[in-house]
């Protein structure tokens, strides 16, 4: 495939990157050959995205160098990287929804005729790139009217039109259906045969098994190892990702689920008012909530928590016999949520660990409306100890804590009120491996004490590793329910992409 004497197309040598004292990347090196699909994998926070942003000129490394075609290159800007043929396809697409496919492809580089945009030429020339990515729409189509999968292809066509030799794709399939994903893979394979190289970032290990020529694994900002084509198997990748055996990573102590403590019947959320959701949760049960981005998982959780009241339907939890209308009602019934975006909705960044931890229990501990400082100090000290929050003092401002410790603060705020039903939305997003393991252990301990846990996660590993039962959502409703024995990546993905349309119970 590659000639040993010629230099690789791209070489990344000893890249390190620090953000305000946090080592995001530590001496990472990799090479990319012509016409190679190189998958870069690692957990959230492993440094993949940072590395890709450096290669694409979005951010600058603290140290290390990038070599393109054997000559050292510096990318002080995205424009410089583009000139060298390196294009980044963002996780969130960067398209102008209100413009046509052709206009998007030539955005910022419009050919002119008598000082005005030469529309004919744009349409004609863009057709070449539209064909190249197998997009079956006319160039004049407005991008906003296309489904997300096709928008992605427009983004790739746009990159190709700048003569990109290296495409960086950051989680390109995160919001695609199975069919759209297969289509994208065909396009990537086509590009490979034309000699275009692809740096492919994904969490979905089966995609990598299917597509990648080679895999580089990052862990905690460091190079953890790589696998050639023949060794690309889930088990091998996961071992490099977590640095230990997966089965030990997701430790569960087996226990019998208790009584039903939450029953939802025909619940309708404001986001999907025409879909109903029904389920039961038992004490001591950990239930995973799986689904693609936009499937309605977060909306379901915020509805159960009273943030966005339900349109109608019933919910019975403890003393509550209807869906909560306010967060306070939910909390009074023992329903508590650690939200997906914890910096936005879970934390008060300029406030101390203590004030964050005690906020929810101030009302319980009040003395006729006055703060009870003794109780506040006790709650804070107990939760710092229980959650093992790493901080010099609980007067430390939470902004300066790591993602893992911040999440523990969010959880601690609720645990001191002893929840009956704990809702977790992406509980380990952006968290280092050590904290992840602690949060998994904590979930297990809480379940053992009889707390029902409903957690949404986009990481299938996590869903599979932790859940006693999985509810899979697709377009606002629950498309299936899987018992522990039936939970596999395939069964979850099939339900998540709407593969099985009616609700069915699979497994034992």
């Amino acid at each position, binding site marked *: 495939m590659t000639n040993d004497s010629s230099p690789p197309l791209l070489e990344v040598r000893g890249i390190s990157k620090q953000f*305000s*004292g*946090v080592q995001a990347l530590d001496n990472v090196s990799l090479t990319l050959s012509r016409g190679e699909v190189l998958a870069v994998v690692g957990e959230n926070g492993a440094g993949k995205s940072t590395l890709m942003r450096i290669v694409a000129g979005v951010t600058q490394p603290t140290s290390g160098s990038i070599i393109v075609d054997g000559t050292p290159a510096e990318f002080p800007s995205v424009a410089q990287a583009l000139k060298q043929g390196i294009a980044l396809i963002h996780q969130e697409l960067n398209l102008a929804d209100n413009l046509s496919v052709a206009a998007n492809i030539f955005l910022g580089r419009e050919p002119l005729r008598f000082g005005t945009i030469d529309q004919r030429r744009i349409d004609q020339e863009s057709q070449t790139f539209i064909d190249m990515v197998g997009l079956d729409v006319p160039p004049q189509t407005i991008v906003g009217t296309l489904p997300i999968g096709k928008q992605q292809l427009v983004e790739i066509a746009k990159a190709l039109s700048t003569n990109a030799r290296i495409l960086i794709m950051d989680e390109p399939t995160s919001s695609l259906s199975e069919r759209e994903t297969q289509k994208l893979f065909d396009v990537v394979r086509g590009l490979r045969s034309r000699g275009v190289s692809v740096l492919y970032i994904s969490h979905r290990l089966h995609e990598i098994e299917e597509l990648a020529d080679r895999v580089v694994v990052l862990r905690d900002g460091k190079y953890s190892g790589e696998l050639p084509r023949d060794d690309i198997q889930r088990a091998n990748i996961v071992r490099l990702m977590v640095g230990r055996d997966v089965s030990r990573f997701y430790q569960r102590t087996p226990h019998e689920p208790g009584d039903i403590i939450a029953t939802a019947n025909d619940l309708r959320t404001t986001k999907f008012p025409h879909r109903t959701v029904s389920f039961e949760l038992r004490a001591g049960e950990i239930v995973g909530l799986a689904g693609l981005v936009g499937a309605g998982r977060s909306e379901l959780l915020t509805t159960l*928590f009273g*943030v966005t009241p339900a349109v109608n339907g019933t919910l019975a939890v403890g003393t509550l016999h209807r869906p909560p209308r*306010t*967060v*306070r009602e*939910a*909390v009074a019934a023992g329903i508590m*949520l650690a*939200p997906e975006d914890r910096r*936005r*909705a*879970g*934390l*008060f*960044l*300029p*406030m*101390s660990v*203590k*004030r964050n931890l005690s*906020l*929810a229990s*101030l*009302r319980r501990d*009040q003395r006729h*409306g*006055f*703060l009870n400082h003794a109780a506040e100090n006790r709650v804070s000290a107990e939760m710092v100890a229980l959650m093992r929050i*790493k*901080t*010099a*003092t609980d*007067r*430390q*401002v939470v*902004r*300066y*804590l*790591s993602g893992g*410790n911040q999440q523990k603060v969010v959880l601690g*705020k609720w645990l001191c009120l002893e929840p009956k039903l704990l809702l977790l939305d992406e509980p380990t997003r952006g968290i*280092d491996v*050590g904290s992840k393991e602690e949060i998994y252990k904590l979930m297990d301990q809480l379940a053992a004490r009889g707390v029902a846990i409903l957690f949404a996660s986009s990481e299938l590993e996590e869903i599979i590793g932790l859940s006693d039962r999985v509810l899979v959502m697709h377009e606002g409703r629950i498309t299936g329910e899987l018992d522990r024995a039936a939970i596999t990546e395939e069964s979850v993905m099939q339900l998540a992409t709407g593969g099985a349309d009616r609700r069915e119970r699979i497994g034992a």
Partner: protein
Amino acid sequence: MTSDAKQPAVVEATGARRAFSPQGVKIWGIFGLLVAICLFTAISNHRFLRFGNIENLVHRTALIGILSVGAAFVIITGGIDLSIGSLVCLVGVLLPYLLVEHSWPVPLALVAVLGLSVAIGIAHGLLITKMRLQPFVVTLCGLLLYRGIARGLTGDQSQGFGVGFKSLRAIATSKLPIFGSQPGVFHLPATALILIVIAVVAAIFLNKTIYGRYLLALGNNPEAAKYSGINVDRTTIMAYVVCSTLAGIGGMLYVLDVNAAQPSDFGNFYELYAIAAAVLGGCSLRGGEGSITGVVIGAAVMVVLKNTINLVFPQYENMEFAIIGGVILIGVIVDELARRFVTARREAARQNKTNPPG
């Protein structure tokens, strides 16, 4: 990160440490500014230190201070109230109007104007929370509405108490002989006592009650406050009610003090004095931050600055606004630079601790 425990603590201050917290530094900074202006004026013109002048300064500070404490509550939520001056006008005009023109009994008139202030605060709060209108827009409309009503109601005629209502006016005009009743010693204006009571209650509310904590939390991050079970709407409405009520009390005291109110200019720009005092005193317009002590000192700075212009630069009296604006601007620039300097030093200290040189 496991190195968290080794990082220098960036801590929120409590107890004795509060003086050295960012907030504490701000209060000392504004206090220093006040002392500096006082010293300069005292040296430049000996009349500054006369008891009559000082009594007057304390009295004016008390009146502005009452409005500023109210403004601070709204600013802490991340909002703004531009209608303070117009509400001062409406209440200031209504009180003599009801008492003199319509011969209402005193208690009824007082309850009416105070009730009106509370109702206006509730209306602002409801429009901002339930209708989700922007505080700036709602209170800007209030600014226009209340002055317009005051002028229309009275046919734009000045409203006053004439020679009556001496005992009622004494609330705002009397001076308490705390150092003995002989002339020539310092008498404490009664308004100062009112400000002290209001400020102490406000400070206790803000720092010692769960609702004060909720107010700071929601100003800091309204979304997270909602997700923590705090009734964000009710707490926000409460802040606007406090602001309008204090504006109403301020309006009553102003008109009792000067005896007559001209609807077209009574209370003009007072909302801006109040907001400026709150900002000088350490409130961030982003919300979530503020101290009552700082706000009262901020009000004093505004008042003394005006006095300085009168006593030391009488030739520039017409430039009063420009001078006050300039001083405030310099104050916030210095504050911002100091904050950046402290942050940069902290950041450097963190870097050094995490990566020991060599």
